[in-house]
């Protein structure tokens, strides 16, 4: 309702309850909370899948093993595969866990206290797993999200937009004449430009905008809560910042620019990620065709942003002023 224009972080962002503490929680907890969100979604999917596969005699019955479900003979009713999933909880003691588990009904989660050496090895293992997971989702050169992880994020945000009746924008950026950089000064130079571009993207966006590298010299920016106008302003500022940069390779200086296409999605319409990317791509194409180093917003032909049936037309005004049928 009441919007404070100067506070960008508050603009049009619904469903903070979806990620209550993650944004403010200290380091390890933020990560954990994010994972628990993902775990919840994963289990919800599994539950849905199991429910629909329920009539299939080969399907695994819903995992509900535990003391309450054991039959009198002590045999485990779940005859299918069984998995225990573990995660390290740095800083958590046995006593503290017991209290928490009792308070929040988590007695079915068992806790193992680790001695120093096992602790160390498992920590290392956990770190290796985390690094791999990060690598899987991020571009090694720039550290930005990669295409796969980005698409996942887009779907999430689109659901949020639809639920909350808000809007978002997607901007596709492509560095202009980038091939020239690699050809003239080599790939190491090209990499430098890409890394700098990624830095600029990260600096220009707020905490919850998402930046990704989805191609050789292609980047994409997800801007939740932004209108096409706001997105355009942001992209144009970014373009100016990039053009102001002076790059130096092999004792030569050069400048670079990008072209960008923006597509928006507003609450009521159901937008698909691929369609949104497609529209942004079309706008990007327009930007390139119009001479590069510019930003274009995609306009759906023939579809106005608002209902025009109430607009007073010129013939109506004419009639009011003169009383004539002209």
């Amino acid at each position: 309702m009441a919007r404070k224009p100067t506070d960008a972080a508050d603009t049009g962002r619904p469903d903070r309850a979806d990620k209550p503490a993650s944004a403010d929680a200290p380091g390890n907890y933020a990560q954990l909370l994010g994972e628990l969100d993902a775990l919840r979604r994963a289990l919800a999917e599994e539950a849905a899948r199991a429910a629909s596969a329920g009539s299939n005699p080969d399907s695994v019955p819903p995992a509900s093993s535990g003391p309450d479900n054991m039959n009198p003979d002590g045999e485990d009713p779940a005859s299918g595969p069984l998995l225990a999933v573990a995660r390290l909880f740095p800083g958590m003691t046995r006593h503290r866990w017991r209290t928490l588990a009792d308070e929040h009904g988590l007695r079915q989660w068992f806790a193992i206290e680790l001695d120093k050496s096992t602790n160390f090895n498992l920590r290392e293992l956990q770190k290796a797993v985390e690094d791999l997971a990060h690598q899987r989702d991020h571009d090694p050169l720039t550290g930005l999200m990669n295409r796969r992880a980005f698409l996942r994020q887009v779907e999430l945000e689109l659901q949020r937009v639809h639920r909350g009746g808000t809007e978002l924008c997607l901007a596709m950026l492509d560095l202009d004449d980038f091939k020239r950089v690699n050809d003239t000064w080599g790939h190491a130079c090209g990499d430098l430009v890409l890394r700098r571009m990624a830095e600029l993207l990260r600096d220009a966006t707020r905490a919850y905008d998402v930046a990704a590298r989805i191609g050789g010299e292609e980047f994409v920016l997800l801007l939740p809560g932004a209108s096409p106008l706001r997105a355009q302003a942001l992209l144009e500022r970014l373009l100016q910042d990039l053009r102001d940069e002076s790059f130096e390779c092999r004792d030569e200086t050069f400048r670079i620019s990008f072209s960008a296409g923006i597509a928006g999605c507003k609450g009521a319409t159901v937008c698909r990620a691929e369609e949104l990317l497609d529209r942004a791509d079309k706008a990007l194409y327009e930007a390139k065709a119009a001479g590069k180093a510019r930003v274009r917003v995609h306009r759906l032909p023939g579809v106005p942003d608002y209902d025009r049936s109430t607009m007073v037309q010129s013939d109506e005004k004419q009639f009011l002023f003169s009383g004539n049928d002209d």
Partner: protein
Amino acid sequence: MTQNTTLSVSILSGKGGVGKTNIALNLGYCLYRGGHPLLLMDCDLGLANLDVLLGIAPDRNMQDLLDSDAAPRDIAVPIEQGGFDFLPAASGVPELVEMDGDMRALLVRKLEPLFSRYDFLFLDLGAGINPTVLAFAAMTQLRIVIVTPEPTSLTDSYALMKVLSTQHGVRDFFVIVNQAESRKEETQTFERLAAACRKFLDIEPQFLGGVRLDKAVPDAVRKQKPLMRVAPQSPAAQDLFSIAVKLQRMRAALLPELADRPPLRALSEEAY
């Protein structure tokens, strides 16, 4: 369940500065003097005007209804003793102008217990075609559009009627022509508007009356007193009186219909 006897009327214009609030106030005054308890609501929620015309500076306003546990009875300010009250709006509160459907529903719910003691509920709407204006206009049983002979006033009123009829299914409007220099100009102005409505919107507005251009009106405004009190014999005052009489008759005729309807139509019925 008690039968409803309150007739709700919204007074709108599209264009600002055409005398909407003044007319609302003085019509209200006439009806009150005619023996009808009347509540005047300043629905220009973020830019209150009614209190200014009355020379009253109320401590509380409708925003307090939303912010605190204040009862509507505490917010209502008597203009005259014994049944002529008004509900002030706030001044300089943009959030009230941008009120969403839920807030409006809450406001109406909180006000409802207050309505039953009045024969008339006048909603003095703000200018323009923002969602608050449209919502309130669609909520009342009657609508009175105030126009002046000026082309911009005609266009703005027409635009307002167009939005209300096409987007909100509201098709009944009464028209008062304010500040015409002659009866002829009054009729011409109304006819111009009505013809456009007939031709393009397929609706038939009804002429409720005209209020002549009269120096006594700005004089009363400067004195911050109702015209009906300071210059009851002036031409404008007499015109207002005639219109009030019509409204009185209309209410009497509508009483059977009003009986089982709420004074303000539930928001769920609106076409949003």
